[in-house]
């Protein structure tokens, strides 16, 4: 029983950690894109 519990916990933890890291990376990249686009805009105007 303990092993069953341990196995499923481990599987879920790893999966969630991965999904979390994916979403964080995505967020970071999107922020970066926004920042760069703004920079580009401001440079065009100047």
């Amino acid at each position, binding site marked *: *029983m303990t*092993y*069953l519990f*341990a*196995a*499923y916990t*481990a*599987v879920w933890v*790893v*999966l969630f950690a*991965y*999904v979390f890291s*994916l979403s964080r*990376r*995505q967020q970071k*990249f*999107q922020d*970066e*894109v926004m920042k*760069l*686009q703004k*920079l*580009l805009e401001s*440079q*065009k105007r*100047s």
Partner: protein
Amino acid sequence: MKLLRVHALSTFIAMLIALYAIFIFAPTERTMGFIGEVQRIFYFHVSSNWTTFLATFCVFLCSILFLLKESREWDIRAAAAAELGVVFGTLGLISGTLWARPVWGIWWTWDARLTSFFLLWLILLAYQMLRRVVDSPAQRGRLSAVFGILAAVDTPIVYMANRWWRTQHPAPVIAGGPGSGLDPRMALTLCITLGAFTLLYVYLWRIRCELERTADVIETLQRQLQTQGMEVR
């Protein structure tokens, strides 16, 4: 984007159904006698491993297509699939050791399937490593595609070599000889779990590809910024 959301939702529901099937619907193992509840690890274990092989196969196909078409898209897909292979391979290894301990009394054994799966996992890690140490994107694509193809062809050979060497892993239960069948309810549960994992895999794959594309956008923007900066100056 909307399709992606539908996909996410269906993956979520499929996962819930799979969990229900595993813990409540599927009967407790009796035929092998001594295993009992622990047998329920089997569904996730098989599904993770299946997904790892699926990912490896995707790496193989995408690598070939990349070499033929030279389009960045296939490189992105191959890279994403390889990363998911590592993730699901890790799941398979963890659930496998936690199954082996109560059932075989040991965490690990150098059996054919375990060894070749472990090797596959290492190869996928090496693939990730290779991608990190090549600077030019075009070259990174070509080199990793070549390695991906070699690795994917190598995997079944490793497996057969190990198998002829020695084996302890339970023989395939599903398509094995007579009398090796699963309880129909167990088979159904396994099918559901496999389906749910495949959905999850495809979903994560799409997300991961999207991430890589965003990274590409950043790169082009940065380059634009640089050239523009020079013009302004």
